[in-house]
């Protein structure tokens, strides 16, 4: 007799907020659906070779492998370079610095995480690329390495703050217990705190990876923009291309409905799947850590 309907109250407030909720859910749904639908033509015409093909000539053939390679390479590079700095400063901040210094550091990191990508891009093209060129004696400083380095700097604040949160989430009693057993502070951190915070730390890194992989503008300016896998494939000092950069460069000329547009959206779909995998894993790990 006391069965409640799904939505018991239906005043104007219900309809107004319901409309807003429908708009947001509908927009998000449409976004995902059209990402899939719009990329169908290129998969129809190219088949799976869209994913494996190494050549991309607008109007003729669309192969995304060099871009997928570039995205993975640049992101991997960024994470390798950022890890020691982000984790080191997270451990120092959370375990060894006083509360007030910690707050200042956190605030600074949040500010830095908001620095617009275009500024990193400007710095990359005007300074970093030149430094890389001169330092390694290259003809062109716009390389996969440059892009990876720039991304590492960009995601440092994000990874550091999240990692620091993960370390702080380890309860103080754990530290006290370890210290009371005669461990030094550093031993406590390394043997007890870090292992316990591991899922959270991994989550932080995954979220940072997701951010790095989706970043467009800064990478676009320093990656070189050449759609090929370097020979040999691990030559980081060659120019390359990643997915966001490719979309950013060609979107303006492809605006419309032909196959090139569909190919770009398909690239977007591939990128979205990769980023989504990383961030979902990241959120999952962070939630597990809590």
């Amino acid at each position, binding site marked *: *007799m*006391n069965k*409640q309907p799904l939505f*018991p109250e239906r005043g104007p407030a219900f309809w107004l907020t319901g409309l807003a909720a429908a708009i947001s859910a509908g927009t998000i749904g449409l976004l995902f659906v059209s990402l899939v639908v719009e990329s169908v033509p290129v998969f129809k015409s190219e088949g799976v070779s869209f994913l494996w093909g190494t050549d991309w000539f607008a109007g003729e053939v669309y192969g995304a492998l060099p871009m997928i390679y570039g995205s993975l390479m640049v992101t991997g590079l960024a994470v390798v370079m950022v890890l020691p700095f982000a984790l080191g400063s997270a451990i120092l901040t959370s375990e060894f610095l006083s509360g007030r210094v910690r707050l200042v550091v956190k605030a600074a990191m949040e500010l830095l995480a908001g620095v617009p990508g275009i500024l990193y891009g400007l710095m990359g093209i005007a300074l970093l690329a030149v430094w890389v060129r001169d330092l390694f004696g290259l003809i062109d400083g716009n390389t996969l390495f440059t892009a990876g380095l720039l991304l590492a700097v960009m995601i440092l604040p994000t990874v550091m703050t999240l990692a620091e949160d993960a370390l702080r989430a380890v309860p103080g009693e754990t530290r006290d217990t370890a210290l009371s057993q005669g461990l030094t502070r550093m031993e406590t951190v390394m043997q007890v705190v870090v292992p316990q915070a591991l899922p959270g730390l991994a989550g932080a890194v995954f979220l940072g990876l997701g951010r790095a992989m989706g970043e467009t503008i800064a990478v676009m300016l320093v990656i070189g923009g050449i759609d090929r896998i370097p020979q040999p494939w691990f030559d980081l000092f060659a120019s390359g291309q990643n997915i966001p950069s490719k979309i950013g460069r060609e979107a303006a000329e492809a605006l419309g409905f032909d196959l090139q547009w569909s190919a770009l959206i398909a690239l977007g779909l591939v990128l979205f799947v990769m980023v989504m995998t990383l961030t979902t894993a990241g959120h999952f790990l962070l939630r597990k850590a809590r």
Partner: protein
Amino acid sequence: MTENVYAIQLENVRLSYSGKAVIDGASCAIRKNAVTAVVGPSGSGKSTLLRTLCRMNDRIPGFRAEGSVRVLGRDIHDPGINVYELRKRVGMVFQKPCVFPKSIYENVVFGLRFHASPNGENFSERAERALRDAFLWDEVKDRLDQPAHILSQGQQQRLAMARTLAVDPEILLMDEPTSALDSKSANAIEDLILSLKEHHTIVLVTHHVEQAERVAEDLICVDDQTVCHKPCQYP
């Protein structure tokens, strides 16, 4: 007939959270214009029972009420019932005094603003009446526009009562209204309860048997999922 005598009638009521019964097979009746105390060990479901009477448990996921709960002559789980009108007529005061971060005056007319009929009723008059009824007027009449936080806990609880009284309820539900207060404030609340019963039906959950004896005419014991009228085996 009986509805002139009783404000609330429960018949074979079962209250459960996610299938786990808190109260099962409860039947009792509460007289109009009297103070009824609900006593029982902690965790026995006194509060759940009380909150059911104005359907405050609706928003708790998994809560279910079965059987007939008649308040002021109507089954409150009837689909045609207006739950907001019900809660206006059946006011509730909670254990912890809750005031909003607004002025004292704004707190008193908080609910009134939404229930007053549009034909220009005088808010300040009704606020004064509510504060007088809650024995708080003399203490706050000169500082109605000050933030309500500055009041003591006991005053805050009386302010919460004034806020409830301002919307003119017929039944007042009180969930251990004195347990968060010192004994002096608690006495003030007890006096208040006695003065209010002339015009209101009061249901009071308490864990002090002495308090129940001081203020209540009727006693309801809740224990081991059952509900019984006095005499009570409660130690």
